[in-house]
């Protein structure tokens, strides 16, 4: 019997959420005024949660490391947000969105959570429209939709190629209104560096003021982690430079289990790596696959000429182009899910058909769409993406195909939460990308925005009440309690330690080394030998880090190097856990591909008999092996099949 209690409600799948809401406790308005909630992170999940909780009457303290909540990395999401509105009359429904998401996640997500996500998805669109989000419209004035990978209906709402930006600005505006009214106290340029627990319950955080360097204590009746994913453990990713896992990681070290860290999404359409000085990778929206066709040359000699720059892509006739996604997956074609598209690109490049000088790129070609629809239509749909591509690569995608290659993009794994989004620490919640629950082993496009806003607007504001109803007798948390002082001391010691190593190597060098180990051994294809090697190398890197790190500047001033050092120290530990989880999961599912578990055609082979569970890891010490706890995934509604997009 697992010690994990997912608290999935009884009853038929479509009634679980309604039944649950009817059964959970509600806090009276008079008592909400006496309760405080801390929200860490102000992306879609954090901003929507902070605003909604404040509207309900709770006192909220919100934190972000940027200079404004509007800059959280949700802002960079391009393509869109899914919702089961069925505005297109194409037989979409809550059930179909639920089914697509469970299947897309390769049957490694929790049915009840996903169904709830699909149920609240229409409300998100309504909410955003009411806030003034300028979604794309049809001539008749109604909302427009586009299709996305892994599904057969058009259910994605969008605002040009800046959907994440517009949704975040919507949530940000709601947050601003609460800041102005005094319900939210906003702490920008503050970074959470520890969690404070008292008698086993989350009671506050320690945060570092990134301007003054001061370390401060903040108390609350509940703490919500909405700090995003851990993609930057790979150094190069589509995440922002500052994206980090430290808030989640300190919670892990305080007892919150960390689930399925090996489920990492590698996005198929990113601008390929350029040289060795690159700091981050830029995503080209998946929506481009609606109108772009992916191909590599059919003949090896053409690929060689392309790599040497002797010919260009437009020199190849249609019959010399291998539209490999359409060839391998005729029913979904260019719109297969991300994990499938990424592996197919890697397969072509590994076979020697890559088209850039490094041999690590394939084409995404708009020639056919421009011929069909005209340049104007394509410009309207993707103009900003084409402009971004041209600025970065100096090549014009209206005239020649884009070069793309997979890159680390999103992390499905994260802090383990129950149906209420509470972690294994009472009073500590995790929402949005920071938790693990909804996307299984692979996330469908346009579903991250949906989940972030679902959690923040429509799930957490209900479920947190069930816990806080039991806390109404607890007075304002006193931050002079020994637990706070102890935690603060621990943080100061850690900062001192990092600062005083005074070695020879700046932190970025360690981060790049970690990223290389991860990409080479824990990337798109994994095997037991590589993973074992990675664990050993990461452990060695950790020793090296604490011996040779060089942090310049001052402790009590703006010091980005010190911030990075703290984050990379955590990434090194997280990278090891990620590799351990990948080693444990000897099956291929979603974004996790174990070479030992594949079909003869090279497709992923899932192993439901042995791995239909959530792997939740419990911290046992930096040098000790973590303990594995399994939450069995029970599929009551959807029948498990090998995923096929052929």
């Amino acid at each position, binding site marked *: 019997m697992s010690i994990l209690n997912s608290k999935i409600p009884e009853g038929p799948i479509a009634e679980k959420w309604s039944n649950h809401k009817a059964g959970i406790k509600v806090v009276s308005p008079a008592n909400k005024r006496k309760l405080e909630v801390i929200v860490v992170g102000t992306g879609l999940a954090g901003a*929507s949660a902070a605003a*909604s909780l404040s*509207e309900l009457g709770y006192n909220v303290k919100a934190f972000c490391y*940027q*200079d*404004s909540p*509007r*800059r959280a*990395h949700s*802002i*960079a999401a391009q393509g869109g947000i899914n919702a089961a*509105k069925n*505005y297109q009359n194409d037989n979409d429904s809550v059930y179909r969105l639920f089914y697509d998401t469970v299947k897309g996640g390769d049957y490694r997500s929790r049915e009840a959570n996903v169904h709830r996500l699909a149920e609240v998805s*229409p409300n998100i*669109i*309504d*909410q955003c*429209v*009411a806030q*003034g989000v*300028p*979604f794309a*419209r*049809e001539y008749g*004035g109604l909302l427009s939709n586009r299709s996305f990978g892994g599904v057969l209906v058009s259910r994605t709402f969008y*605002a040009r190629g*800046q959907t994440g*930006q517009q949704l975040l600005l919507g949530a*940000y*505006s*709601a947050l*601003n209104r609460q800041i*102005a009214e005094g319900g939210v106290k*906003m702490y*920008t340029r503050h970074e959470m560096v520890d969690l404070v627990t008292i008698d086993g319950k989350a009671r506050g955080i320690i945060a570092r003021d990134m301007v003054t360097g001061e370390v401060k204590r903040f108390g609350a009746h509940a703490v919500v982690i909405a700090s995003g994913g851990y993609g930057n453990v790979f150094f190069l990713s*589509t995440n922002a*430079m500052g994206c980090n896992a430290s808030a989640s990681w300190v919670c892990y070290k305080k007892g919150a289990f960390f689930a399925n860290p090996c489920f990492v999404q590698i996005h198929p359409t990113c601008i390929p790596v*350029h*040289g060795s*000085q*690159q*700091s*981050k990778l830029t995503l080209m929206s998946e929506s481009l696959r609606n109108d772009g066709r992916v191909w590599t040359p059919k003949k090896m000699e053409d690929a060689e000429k392309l790599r040497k*720059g002797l010919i260009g892509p437009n020199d190849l006739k249609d019959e010399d182009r291998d539209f490999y996604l359409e060839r391998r997956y005729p029913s979904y074609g260019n719109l297969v899910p991300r994990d499938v598209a990424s592996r197919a690109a890697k397969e072509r490049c590994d076979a020697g058909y890559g088209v850039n*000088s490094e041999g690590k790129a394939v084409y995404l070609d708009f020639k056919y769409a421009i011929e069909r629809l005209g340049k104007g239509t394509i410009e309207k749909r993707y103009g900003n993406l084409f402009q*971004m591509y041209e*600025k*970065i690569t100096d*090549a014009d995608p209206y005239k020649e195909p884009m070069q793309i290659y997979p890159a680390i993009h999103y992390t499905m794994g994260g802090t383990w939460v129950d149906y209420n989004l509470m972690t294994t620490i009472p009073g500590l919640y995790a929402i949005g990308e920071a938790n693990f629950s909804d996307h299984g082993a692979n996330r469908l496009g346009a579903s991250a925005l949906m989940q972030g806003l679902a959690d923040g*607007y*429509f799930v957490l*504001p209900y479920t947190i009440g069930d816990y806080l109803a039991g806390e109404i007798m607890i007075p304002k948390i006193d931050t002079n309690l020994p637990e706070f002082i102890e935690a603060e001391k621990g943080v100061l010691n850690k900062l001192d330690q990092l600062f005083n190593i005074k070695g020879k190597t*700046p932190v970025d060098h360690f981060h790049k080394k970690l990223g290389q180990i991860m990409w080479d051994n824990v990337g798109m294809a994994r095997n037991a030998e590589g993973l074992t090697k990675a664990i050993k190398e990461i452990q060695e890197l950790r020793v090296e880090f604490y011996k040779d790190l*060089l942090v*310049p*500047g001052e402790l009590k*001033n*703006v010091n*980005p*190097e010190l911030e990075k050092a703290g984050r990379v120290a955590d990434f090194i530990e997280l990278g090891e856990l990620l590799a351990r989880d990948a080693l444990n999961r000897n099956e291929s599912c979603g974004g996790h591909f174990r070479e030992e578990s594949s079909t003869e055609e090279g497709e992923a082979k899932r192993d439901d008999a042995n791995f239909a569970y959530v792997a939740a890891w419990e911290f046992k010490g930096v040098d000790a092996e973590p303990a594995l706890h399994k939450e069995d995934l029970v599929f009551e509604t959807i029948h498990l099949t090998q995923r096929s997009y052929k």
Partner: protein
Amino acid sequence: MADKILNKIYVKVWRQNNATAKGRFETYTVENVSQGTSFLEMMDILNDELILGGKDPIAFDHDCREGICGMCSLYINGHAHGPDTQVTTCQLHMRKFHEGQTITVEPWRVGAFPVIKDVMVDRTAFEKIQQAGGFVSVNTGGVPDGNTLPISQDDAEEAMDAAACIGCGACAATCKNSSAMLFLAAKVSQFAKLPQGQVEAKRRAKAMYAKMDELGFGGCTNTGACELACPKSISIAHIARLNREYLKAKLAD
């Protein structure tokens, strides 16, 4: 196409240890930079050398590095976000610079944006303008179906043009009066084009305008410099719409 290597460039950058310290320019040499490198990656290379040389690296704001978060904010060779058009500093590439060039890097010079350190500034003033009225006052839940409110495609597109603002501050940094009118106009104009924004239109225009003045931003004299500097090409036509909104609100008083 392989990018060329710049063998040597000179970076003349503003150094200031904190808000109250006296600032000064320092010039550093950077060698072997590929023109395919982004400007901020060049700064990374320079910082790495400074750290290895026992010096304090240059503090600058940046985050997404794909031109959308609005965090990066450098004034490069006399231009906000540098010599390229329609890009933020993070999307600026070294192709725009030549061998042996001296590149001057300054912070946004706006009274309402005090320097925090080096070329990093405090843009809290922009937050306060948004908090004064940059929202539609609806709580979560209880809103009508999204399709009950048809909006013409033209209006939605124009609202989106305005909403594309990333809040970087290039407009104010470029304006000779340090005016934040384009930033303010982007928000007011977005809501002015949408039915959702009508209910509070008057209150919004007045409150945001008053907050901008209170924070010490200058007035607009219609030079149009902000539009040219804007990485998202927000048009000054939105300032005209802001003025109409403001006038309508004042006349109704």
